[in-house]
């Protein structure tokens, strides 16, 4: 989603006009967008073949580091990195081992989007800019390198440490899963018109599937209801940290902590942060009022002070 400069500047001007109008955007609890797309990963179905990891590298033109990927390294890369937007980890869980696929969770209310100064990381359909060619309302967290200053606040903010940084490059970028937004096919219809993750396409076991978040959530619930003995009762991402668009099912007896997920409250940290930091500003009124009051007080005291300066004995 490289944006042409022209549409970009147009967007900038429009948004600039929008900021002049008072923004009554109190940050309410964010609900998932109706057309939100995502993935459902079922840890009990994953066979650990890492076909998704290879497909992801191919689809995103990421180099395959021979030291971490190839026939001699069936485990593939151990963790997300600037050259791996998704990995499958083997973790000790529930008294045995379990696979877990990692990638950006595409949060319902993402901390990285709240953090990003210029909106380089933005949620499709939720940003205030209309970036050319983006289908609205999918909620995919997209990255626009032309707006990124490389401050890495997104990495500090992300509870899953999903965004990765090209540490060894003079002109680095942030690397993270964008749900193969670039592979979308408008003619394909359905959710495939907005994104088409390569990992879901190649998974031989159906362990990771792509679709609308609402459908995936229903599917996850159906699987749990059908085989309650097979699954842990929780669906990670349903409400965690305000919810995510990538949902996770784990095997019975496996806790998501063991799979490496953080323990998150229901309220997203983005909401907490914006609630706490915005509140004292009163829509920008406080700084103006403070400035006016300070200028008034200082000016008056200056005037009084210059009287005193003429006969300094009075002072102190």
């Amino acid at each position: 989603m490289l944006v042409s400069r022209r549409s970009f500047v147009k967007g900038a001007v429009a948004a600039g006009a929008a900021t002049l109008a008072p923004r009554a955007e109190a940050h309410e609890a964010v609900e998932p967008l109706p057309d939100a797309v995502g993935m459902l990963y079922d840890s009990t179905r994953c066979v650990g073949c890492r076909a998704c990891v290879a497909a992801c590298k191919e689809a995103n033109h990421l180099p395959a580091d021979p030291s971490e990927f190839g026939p001699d390294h069936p485990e593939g890369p151990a963790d997300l990195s600037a050259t791996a937007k998704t990995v499958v980890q083997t973790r000790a869980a529930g008294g045995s081992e379990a696979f877990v696929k990692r990638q950006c969770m595409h949060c319902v209310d993402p901390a990285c989007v709240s953090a990003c100064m210029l909106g380089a990381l933005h949620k499709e359909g939720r940003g205030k800019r209309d970036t050319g060619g983006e289908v609205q309302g999918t909620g995919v967290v997209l990255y626009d390198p032309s707006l990124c200053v490389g401050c890495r606040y997104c990495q500090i903010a992300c509870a899953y440490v999903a965004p990765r940084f090209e540490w060894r490059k003079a002109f680095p970028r942030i690397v993270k899963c964008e749900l193969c937004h670039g592979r979308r096919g408008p003619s394909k219809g359905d959710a495939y018109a907005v994104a088409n993750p390569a990992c879901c396409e190649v998974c031989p076991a159906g362990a990771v599937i792509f679709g609308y978040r609402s459908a995936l959530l229903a599917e996850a619930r159906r699987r749990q209801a059908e085989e309650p003995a097979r699954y842990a009762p929780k669906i990670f991402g349903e409400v965690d940290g305000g919810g995510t668009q990538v949902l996770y099912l784990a095997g019975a007896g496996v806790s998501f902590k063991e799979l490496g997920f953080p323990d998150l409250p229901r309220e997203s940290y983005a909401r907490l942060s914006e609630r706490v930091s915005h509140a004292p500003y009163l829509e920008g009124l406080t700084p103006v009022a403070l400035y006016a009051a300070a200028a008034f007080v200082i000016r008056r005291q200056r005037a009084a002070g210059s009287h005193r300066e003429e006969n300094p004995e009075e002072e102190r």
Partner: protein
Amino acid sequence: MRAQAHPRTVGGPLFDRTVIALLATFAVAAAVIAYRFKAGIGAVSNMNDGFSWGIWEPVNVVVFTGVGAGAYAVGLLCYLLNRGEYHALVRPAVLLGAIAYALGGTSVLIALGRYWNLYWLVLPGMWNLSSVLLEVALCVMTYVAVLWIEILPAVFDRAAQSASAKRAAWGRRWGARFGRAMPYIIASAMVLPTMHQSSLGGLLLLAGSKVHPLWHTPLLPLLALVSCLSMGFGAVVVLTSILRFTWSARHDQELLARMSKVNGGLLLVFVALRMGDLALHGKLRLLLVPDYHLALFAVEMILFLVPAGMFFSHRVERKERLLFRAALATVLAGALWRVDAFITCFDPGARWHYRPAFGEIAVTVGMAALGAAVFILISRRFPVVALEEAHLSAAAPPAPRPNLLRSPFGASPGGSAVRHGHYVRLRHLAFAVVHRDGERLPDGAKARWLRIPGLVFFLGLPLVGGLYVLLLPVVLLTTALSAILTGLLGVTRRAFVYLTAVLTPPWAPGRAHLAGTPGSEEEAALDEARRDGHLDALGEELERERRRRLGGR
């Protein structure tokens, strides 16, 4: 503004030994910075995706600007609360602030990965108003400019004192014009720090799952604001003391002590807010978990409470050296709180480790050195520091300089007559109590006795003792246990892996395997069947999925 309080140029050679040493330190940093722009941030630092800010952001920005908040703190007192007597402190504080903030801003530029995109920041349309960092960036950028504008009167003053009549007239004219605009500039210098200093604390609100709960609270912005004021007051006292002992700057002990009482109040407010917040959020039980978080918390609390107590003591009020130390402690307290929240008590996950690399430390230290050098150079040529009248006549002998950094324990040889108090001989761990002034210490002249300051003795010992009792058994036990256990586990695991590898040749350790390893033949057969069933189910699933997708298109 009394006549003798008016700032003067310090004069003297520009590049003396101190300045050259400071600039040489910065040269190392400059080399590291140059290499960073060529080879990337990872080439000079140990920063990683978990600790993506390393020490540059937390120290160079958050701590430096905390020190630079002296301009804000003194400005609040002097201008808003109309305490004109603090005016002599304003110019050095503003210069310190301008330098600290400029260095913080420069450090950001170095730390930014894609700095060339920074120009978008000037377009309001591009702003993401939810971003706390945006608020910090814009405010800090504006405030750096405001601070340097606040320095301008020094430049006009200097021109007004110039020998050339034309320049002097220019300086006087513009100085007067500028004086009329000053209230509006100062007002913004009061508002901007209020905004960004609180936001600097607010940066971590987003990282709620990573920051230890003893540090993460919705009060972070308020705590950061209170603590930056206290750091600022502390930094001004430290700076004034250093200026006095190096350039015999004018130094009003009574004034500094009075200002420090405000600081003491702020320190107490900080502690009260923090403890109240812990109690309110039911986090007090965390104070019973003996780990390094608690140890750091305890050290912070000591650093906050001890200077607060000292500022209200009559002895400290009179003693320059004690006041200096207490002020230094407040700066350290604020710095430690910031570093803890951003680095030491920041935990992005078990697999992330971070220790600053030489390059990072070199840049941080080099930046601080550059700041000191710039301060010296500017005060030598521009009227910033208010000097004692005595200093201005060349014949006057330099004022006596108490050694600020001498050990607070003050060593004295055995047998000498000393002040009353508690003494310790570290080599032999011997203690002695001297009851009256002038009594002699025991042991021969070779023995070195250290005096334990009363306050440290009474406050520190119970605390240290308590911590010792609380932590030591736990630390010892866990270290011993974990050492034994990891050793045992490692040996057993390795033996087990080798043994299985030998006994079951087809099973390769480390390969992806479906579910466990077959034990006996019976179990293997059973497992085989189970797996077949599983595969059948998978096949069905795949077919279903494929049909669904094909139908979907």
